[in-house]
């Protein structure tokens, strides 16, 4: 028994992670969530289901993804060795596909002919459109109008895959509004529609099942560390918006007390400016949104506040409920990386290792850059390179003053 071993037994039967999580939805959705929970719990321990999931991950996604030693960058930083978990090499270019493969299997078993999704950067939307194409399911993706603008390439990718992208004009026109609209769609079409949520948030059982499907990242990284480093790493670093890639990497290490974990939120212009998307770092209060209780950026009146980040995928005012608990019990340290440092890390990794990271993943790199020099060269950091940066080329070009 280690200090953190009880963390692996959550959520409880009602979907709670301590005071967080739960199922805060309007009554119409309760039945669908109960059905989904029942279906998942029966399939989770079914060897045939697991075998199908593993086979898809191997032959369709291309798993396992490598653990790459960024030697040149590590040398330049002059401290710990940095290893990159290459989720960017997955089919569709990010960790998101691990979850959509899993949920698509559930959708297939449910017999529902249509799937919907919300997306921020578009990676989850692309991953959903991809599995929908493969299974012949109708697919509608909700995306904030601002994100449609800044992620045009992914929007067209989804279109090519046969999905319909529905721009959401309400509220702040970003990820949270896309999720509102997806929930409205689901409540209307719940009989024939499966909602593929892309992060470890939402009502129970989503935080649990999105975690479980992404945990393949951490299981592989753990084995690869033992094989390639000869021991477990000293630290893990991953970016946190809703928190699915961080959850996927961290979860299999939860009981390894000696492995320090850092979740890197979007600092935007700086947490002190208020223009950020870093609820955990900023000490946001508890709140309820999108079906779960968590730390949530809201004003004194309980209105959800606007967020800001250079990366659409982290531009979310809440965070998965399990992260909220991990903050409270001190299992993970949550920090923020500001937009300028993120861009610096993006450029540095591209130039020094020939790997162009997603701006989301560059948040994790920005913190690794801070962390590595404080450690010894015989220490090791595993960074989740959760996605590739092709989708962000236009954003970075714009910052460079280049128009196509």
């Amino acid at each position, binding site marked *: 028994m280690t200090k953190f071993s009880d963390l692996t037994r959550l959520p409880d039967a*009602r979907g709670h992670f301590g005071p967080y999580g*739960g*199922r*805060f*939805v*309007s*009554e*119409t*959705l*309760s*039945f*669908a969530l*109960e059905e989904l929970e029942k279906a998942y719990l029966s399939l989770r321990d079914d060897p045939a289901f697991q075998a199908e999931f593993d086979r898809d991950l191997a032959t369709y996604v291309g798993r396992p993804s490598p653990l790459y030693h960024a030697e040149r960058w590590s040398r330049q930083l002059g401290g710990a060795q940095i290893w990159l978990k290459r989720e960017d090499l997955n089919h569709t270019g990010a960790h998101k596909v691990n979850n959509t493969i899993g949920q698509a299997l559930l959708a297939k078993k449910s017999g529902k002919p249509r799937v919907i999704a919300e997306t921020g950067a578009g990676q989850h939307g692309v991953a959903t459109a991809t599995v929908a194409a493969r299974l012949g399911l109708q697919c509608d993706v909700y995306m904030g109008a601002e994100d449609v603008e800044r992620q045009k390439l992914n929007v067209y990718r989804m279109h090519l895959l046969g999905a319909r992208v529905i721009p959401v004009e*309400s*509220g702040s026109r970003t990820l*949270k*509004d896309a999720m*509102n609209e997806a*929930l*409205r769609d689901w*409540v*209307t*079409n*719940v*009989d024939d529609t499966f909602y593929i949520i892309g992060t470890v948030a939402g009502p129970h059982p989503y935080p649990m099942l999105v975690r479980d499907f992404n945990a393949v990242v951490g299981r592989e990284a753990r084995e690869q560390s033992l094989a390639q480093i000869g021991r477990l790493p000293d630290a893990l670093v991953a970016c946190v918006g809703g928190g699915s890639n961080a959850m996927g990497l961290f979860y299999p290490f939860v009981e390894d007390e000696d492995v320090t974990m850092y979740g890197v939120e979007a600092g935007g212009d700086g947490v002190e400016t208020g223009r950020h998307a870093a609820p955990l770092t900023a000490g946001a*209060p*508890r*709140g*309820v*949104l*999108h*079906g779960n*209780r968590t730390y*949530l950026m*809201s004003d*004194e*009146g*309980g*209105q*959800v506040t606007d967020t800001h980040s250079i990366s659409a995928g982290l531009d979310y005012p809440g965070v998965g409920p399990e992260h909220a608990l991990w903050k409270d019990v001190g299992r993970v340290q949550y920090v923020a990386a500001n937009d300028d440092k993120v861009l610096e890390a993006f450029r540095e990794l591209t130039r020094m290792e020939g790997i162009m990271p997603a701006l989301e993943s560059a948040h994790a790199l920005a913190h690794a850059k801070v962390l590595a020099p404080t450690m010894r060269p015989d220490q090791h950091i595993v960074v989740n390179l959760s996605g590739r940066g092709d989708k962000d080329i236009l954003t970075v070009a714009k910052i460079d003053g280049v128009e196509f």
Partner: protein
Amino acid sequence: MNRIDQRFAALKEQGRTALIPYITAGDPAPAHTAGLMHALVEAGADIIELGVPFSDPMADGPVIQKACERALRHHTRLTDVFEMVREFRRGDAETPVVLMGYLNPIERFGYERFAEQAAAAGVDGVLAVDMPPEEADELAPLFKAQGLQSIFLVAPTTSRARAATICDHGEGYLYYVSLKGVTGAASLDVEAVGRQLDGLRELTQLPLCVGFGIRDGASAAAVGRVADGVIVGSALVSRIAEHAEQPERIPDALKRVLGEMRQALDA
């Protein structure tokens, strides 16, 4: 006895169906709300559902989303909503008021403080649409201690086992969501609603009120034949939206819509 129970007891005696209008507090501006509540009572409202504006109203269609946005442009907060209820109560001690909205503003305000201040302002019941009974174990006792009733939703997708749980926890009345969808959605199937209500009556003595999809006298009367009450929201809120720039016209516009429903129900 709570005002809601009193009102349903009286209606039962008179053989009448409850007419329950919804408006969003602070829409089009906070100064108008108490006056609009009086106008609704004049037009025949038996109970008023007063919406607490929220930035992310996930169960609502565009009409009520925009109402929230208008109210929030004036920074309408819970303390303002309580003030509106107090103002309404100065002229109306009888008509029950139910606050309807989402949990986060209540969570941020503090459960205990909310229950105390709501009761003190003259609120009679609370319906938090994203708080099913399973998540209400902290809040419900605090409401009870202050004499506030917890009102819950039942949907067409609710299983019989869940419906039984909801009936056990529910007070005041059950809000039956007539269709799958958000507020302001298409028209409803009265026969199907009637069958569902018959099933619910086997589980509870609570009055059964039906909302979603009621837009005029005809649909109100049709639902009124199978339900103990009809709830109307978007049909009223869209009138507020039409006249948001000339708010002096709103009371009469609301009275026309609600008055037609009252007449149809009482005919």
